[in-house]
């Protein structure tokens, strides 16, 4: 299985404090001079259970996402990547954590986001590549576990396959400890 279109979501520890308008402004400010190719910021705060504020990029979208009715940062890599599945999983996770850290450190927020680095969701955004099935889990699990072991330690996490066949292939990752974003970034980099 050649994994592509990998998404990671890291949840907010302080969702009640999130101010979508602040995220909108911060991400607009990120566009000029960004090393990434960003196109625009979309405001969807009028809808529920999906994107709230979306920074649209050429390669990757970032969103303040309320999908599943839990607020977090969704990192959606949209283009095919080269390398092993382990490389691609790691690259996506590292990218997500780095954006989360940048957001935590962003001076433009009055209500600073704080992420729970111990609660992550891994999604393959392609039903063609990864139907949400036990077979996909079997195929993905070894490499996913390898990456997560680096981040959390071999016994430092649990995986839960969210097996609703109508949803995309999704795995909930829960750390046993209480790691920080910085720790995880350091271990994966």
């Amino acid at each position, binding site marked *: 299985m*050649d994994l*592509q*279109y990998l998404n990671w979501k890291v949840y907010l520890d302080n969702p009640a404090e999130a101010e979508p308008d602040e995220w*909108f*402004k911060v991400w*607009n*400010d990120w*566009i*000029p001079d960004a090393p990434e*190719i960003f*196109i*625009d910021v*979309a*405001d*969807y705060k*009028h*809808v*529920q*259970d*999906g*994107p709230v504020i*979306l920074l*649209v990029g*050429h*390669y990757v*979208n970032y*969103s303040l996402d309320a*999908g*599943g009715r839990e607020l977090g940062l969704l990192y959606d890599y*949209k*283009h*095919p*990547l*080269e390398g092993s599945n382990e490389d691609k999983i790691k690259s996506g996770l590292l990218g997500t954590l780095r954006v989360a850290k940048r957001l935590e450190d962003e001076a433009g927020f009055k209500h600073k986001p704080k992420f729970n680095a111990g609660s992550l969701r891994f999604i393959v*955004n*392609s*039903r*063609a*590549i990864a139907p949400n099935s036990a077979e996909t889990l079997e195929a993905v699990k070894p490499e996913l576990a390898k990456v997560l072991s680096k981040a959390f330690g071999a016994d430092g996490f649990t995986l839960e396959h969210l097996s609703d066949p*109508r949803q*995309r292939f999704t795995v909930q990752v829960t750390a046993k400890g209480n790691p920080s974003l910085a720790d995880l970034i350091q271990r994966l980099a």
Partner: protein
Amino acid sequence: MKDLDLVSSHAAAHWKTALSDRLDPKWREDIDKFELDILLKKKGKVEDRVFAETRLRMGAYGQRYDNGHRHDGNESRVIPFPTDLNKGPETKWDAPGMERIKLPWGGMSAEQLEVMAQLAEEYSDGILHVTTRQDIQLHYIHIENCPSMFRRLAAVNITTREACGNSVRNVTACPIAGVCREEAFDVTGYANAVFKYLLGHPDVQDFGRKFKIALSGCKHNPCGLTNIHDLGLTAVVRTQADGTVKRGFEYVVGGGLGAVTYDAKLFSDYVPEEEVLALTQATCRVYARLGEKKKRHRARIKFLVADMGIDKFREEVLAERAKLPNDPRWTEFLATLPKFEEKPLRPAGKGIPKTNDAAFDFWCLTNVYPQKQDGFLTVTVTLPMGDITCNQARALVDISRKYLKDTMRTTVEQNIVLRWVSEADLYNVYNDLKAIDLAQPGAASIVDITACPGTDTCKLGVSSSRGLAAELRTRLATKFVQMDEAVRNLRIKVSGCFNSCGQQHIADIGFFGISRNVAGYIVPHFQMVLGGEFINNGGRYGLATGGIASKAIPGVVDKLLDLYMTGKTKGEGFRHWVERTGKAAIMQAVADVAAVPAYDKDKSYYTDWGSVREYNVKDKGMGECAGEVVSLTEFGLKAADREVFEAQIKFDAGDWKSASKLAYQAMLFAAQGLVKMYNIDISDDADKVMAEWKERFYDTQKFFDPFAGPRFAQFYIHAHDERGAELDKEKASRLLQESMLFIEAAHSCNLRLSMGAEKGKEGILAATKSGSKA
């Protein structure tokens, strides 16, 4: 990172193979051809222009910033897309675009909605957007993902073919067709027949512009909006001599919103059902043969009908009809009509259950329609600005499967209706909708605001229609329950530009985006259009009353509603109140809240709704001399604004002759004002103003709108050539609208030139001083 080659990716290959057997062979061929076109384009073997029309005809539209530039509030920056390839003239290959999905008559099965939700999730941004023509649009799509999307859609019997481009667009119809208590008969099967017959038909492949068809079950309700369409079919029945009742349609042509509104013309008050497809085909053939092809802005059928006159047009179509060889499909569809008769999933109820839930009771008032079938209801699911997330859509699919038998439809007010809800289930349906945040009350009311995408994603957007709509919706919702019914039932519609995708001309209160120069700063504005009529299938158009700064609009709307409530007589409708009060008095009454504070006092007015970027600041450092010259131009534009306002007042008073004269005079002032940039001594003589304006602004194309080209300039030239002619009400109304658009274009031209003034300042100054032409 791999090169982007989604067309031949593993995922694309999967869908191509897995779905091959499920696709209609013709649709499969269309998609295969399009896929090949993508590959050929990437090899440089297809012209940009040709590929653009090819993708448009498959519903793949451009989106804002696809020219590779984005203004960040201070300057325009290049978006460094990785490839140089284009997918159309000045349209970058890598730039995301919009995909329009056609849903004929708004019909949508649970399975279809589920697939569209999957596509929105995998290829778009997780949002499904319902349009004012019952389509669903997905944004931020990469062109190379389109073949996979098309295959997945085709597998559930949806095509995007001819969703955009110069073709027959989605065929729309009343969302309550078949369950309406007042319809002559159910038009669903007929709408489907028109869609199927014309899809890919050789006679509709050579249009100069798009062609929109709508069907309505009755004349007086707004659901079908037949009067604003290129072709409108309204169900009528006739009793024959033998007592049998025969179905047919009132047939109108040449209606349209757009920049200048046109009333549809009655072609026939009764076309028998077996003749509808044949006559439609003949109409299309005449449009293809005689319609304008080169001048895009004159290419809709409304111009052809207006130019020919309805009698001559009818004669031409009937002659065409007489020549057409018989096509069995013209009548074969009549035998298929029974299959469009829907069935409920659940038994009929015996009354809506009594509850102590006040929110439910209020929701019932605004969102529930008792069907003609006893015991069943149609429920409107209000979607804020037409948007629904993938998870909400999937949950709606579950609700549909639980209570309905595939009887969902989209509406032209950007909502979804659930038809055939048993009365017994209503409270459960409400609670299920509430659980997914889709039980907001206020369907078809003042809070159910229609908005086109505007500056959010549309290339043509001038102001933020969705931003304004969201703000108005939020503010009005807080007082909605307390509102008087007369106010509650008003409609607000917003477009981001003059093109009227938000249908502002048929709203009680409508807005379309413009920009204005306020003391050297460009300020986002909207033209306010008052007194349009949504009922009677979009029966009457409102008229623009004046530009209002975007940020002032909520205050203006509040004031307007107060004025209406305090000033209306008992039972008086909004349009009648507007006519009786007069636009001048209304504008005067709202002037205090419409005022734009100076930039130093309140910068928020200089940023649009839903934006953090300053709308656009004029280059600083203009010399004194240039400042004086610009002020003369602006003086001329202000005079034009005043004159056209006077024209409206005359028009409202029924004095069309004076209105026409003033409308032309307003254009003259605007043109003269522009000429004063270069020649402050320009004469007042109309011919001399025209000659110099033409030389400086038309021949040089400086006046041309970046998107509309010479369209607005030609309004002035035409008005100049025809000045003094006696105009009837309709023509005077058109001249008035054209005058307003010309003046708006003059404002825009002034802004464009002043934005570029830093570069060309010296040249302009030199020319001004010498009186020579730059």
